[in-house]
């Protein structure tokens, strides 16, 4: 699959539709992690639309790039984007959380496009590191991408993975931090602060880039020029807004996990549409 012909406008359209799917999943019986899904959806849209070498109709194609959603609670964003990119019909999003659905609250491997089930935080970077190591040692050009939450970086296992990936020279590994600044109990800097985040990664031997995580063109340009430094893993610290695109939820602690009532779903969707009109 080549991505060169996917325009920024088309990516924006896919991201918009993905946000609609996320809200729809939030309106199901159990609700979902709305805030952290909306903050991640632009990153995922650019990855699947313009960066990852994948074949949605052949999910385990051996030549593929691997993507690991370490912040597994943003499953709704992953489902929405996978559906938009042809892994399964978008209508299946409506089954989210229902009995016998393939769409659990955290991703399951039985869903096409999911490489590893996640949900417990602090697993994804090691998993992606193993994939990257396997490719580098066997002379294959598969790349590994992993999306981390910022609060998730409080899990110590990440720092084990960060150290070893740099030491092993995994230039084919890219981590993206969805830096929306929130975790359940409040702002990350008020919980256990992560700053200076870029310096921390840099001091561990990674090539570091910082970007607006909602700027589709900037994300595409950045991901299109990997690795930034040969033989070094790259981290992209993507500054994002929790709940992005839905004024009701933007940059709000309460958007972390939401069950949308029909009325709230209507209001959220109206806000999403209004935001889109204002931007075009």
């Amino acid at each position: 699959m080549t991505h060169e012909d996917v325009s920024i406008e088309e990516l924006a359209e896919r991201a918009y539709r993905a946000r609609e799917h996320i809200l729809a999943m939030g309106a199901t019986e159990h609700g979902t992690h709305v805030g952290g899904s909306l903050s991640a959806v632009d990153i995922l849209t650019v990855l699947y639309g313009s960066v990852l070498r994948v074949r949605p109709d052949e999910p385990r194609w051996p030549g593929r790039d691997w993507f690991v959603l370490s912040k597994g609670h943003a499953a709704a964003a992953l489902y929405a984007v996978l559906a938009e990119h042809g892994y399964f019909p978008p209508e299946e999003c409506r089954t989210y959380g229902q009995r016998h659905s393939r769409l659990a609250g955290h991703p399951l491997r039985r869903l096409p496009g999911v490489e590893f089930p996640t949900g417990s935080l602090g697993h994804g970077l090691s998993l992606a590191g193993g994939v990257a190591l396997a490719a580098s040692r066997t002379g294959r050009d598969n790349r590994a991408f992993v999306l981390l939450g910022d609060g998730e970086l409080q899990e110590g296992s990440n720092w084990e993975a960060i150290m070893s990936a740099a030491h092993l020279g995994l230039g084919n590994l890219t981590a993206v931090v969805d830096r929306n600044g929130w975790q359940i109990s409040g702002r990350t800097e008020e919980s256990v602060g992560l700053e200076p985040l870029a310096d921390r990664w840099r001091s561990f031997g990674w090539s570091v880039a910082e970007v607006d995580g909602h700027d589709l063109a900037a994300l595409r340009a950045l991901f299109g020029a990997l690795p930034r430094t040969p033989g070094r893993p790259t981290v992209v610290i993507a500054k994002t807004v929790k709940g992005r695109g839905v004024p009701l939820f933007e940059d709000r602690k309460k958007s972390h996990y939401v069950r949308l009532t029909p009325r709230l779903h209507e209001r959220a969707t109206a806000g999403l549409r209004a935001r889109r009109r204002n931007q075009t």
Partner: protein
Amino acid sequence: MTATEESVPSGSDWAELYTGSARDAHRRTLLELARADDRIFCVDSDTGGFEDGFAAELPAQYANVGIAEANLFGMSAGLAASGLIPFAHTMSTFATTRACEQLKLDVAGNNLPVKVVATHGGLSAGHYGPSHHALQDLAIVRTLPHLTVLVPADAGETALAVRAAAHHPGPVYIRLGRNATPRVYQEPYDFTIGASVQLGDGDDLLVVATGALPVHYALTARDVLAERGVSARVVNMHTIKPLDRAPLLRAARETAGIVTVEDHLVVGGLGGAVSEVVASEHPCRVRRVGVEDRYLDTVGDERDLLEDGGVTVDRVVTEALTLLKPTRTDAYSARPDAYEPRADHHNTRRR
């Protein structure tokens, strides 16, 4: 070609090679396997002993991921998902009580062919102190889906188990001791995952053991019992999961009961597994010799601490003899009027 047909030496070569520790036998075997199959990958977490051997000879098939057990299992799962056969090395206690979640989700949950080589099993690192005791690991790994659990009884059997694990399509937990232990096997045999090995026949009871010293203790206890006119059959249960049920149920039907012997807590390990099987299929008496439920903070080597925990030859003998004594229930059943009062007893209770 089966695992054992490859390059297992026979006869005196075997005796020469596999006198010593399970760890040495494993390292030698892994290097042989990796030379022949470049999918075999050695993932180290600073356990020591691979630098001059494996890493020097096959650097492309080796990585040290640091003193970082969670990362060890995560990366091993990534390697396995990419088509390699990683052997992930750490101590039993860190494999299970430190990085349990990665073992549960990333390795076992995904049914990926990661081979966990867990050294210093049980009290084999006794002198290191309680931080290095692994007395819960079998209880933990027994509950993880897809995971096969192997506990070889000597260095030679370790070589066979490692080969079998390499060829097994799923994840395997291989529990090894730290020290040189007595040789159980004088020559290689057809090691099969899930098929226990009977090491001696007897009619009175079954002693089933797992791991190096427990199997050694069981064999010694059999000799002691024989001197007292008791004939015990002995089984080396080298696979804890899937557990070989047939010899257990046979013993439940044919003998006075089963004594289990293990270098593990009496809860959740071999004794627990055996009890579960007979309780549901053919109830019989099970006496469990293992470390009692307490925190061992005494000082000593492996055998000393096993003794402090309650695992000795004498203890195996005592428990075996206990099985042969009539129980209160037996005595009750033996009364001529046993059946009548029993029925009354039930009626009385109901009233």
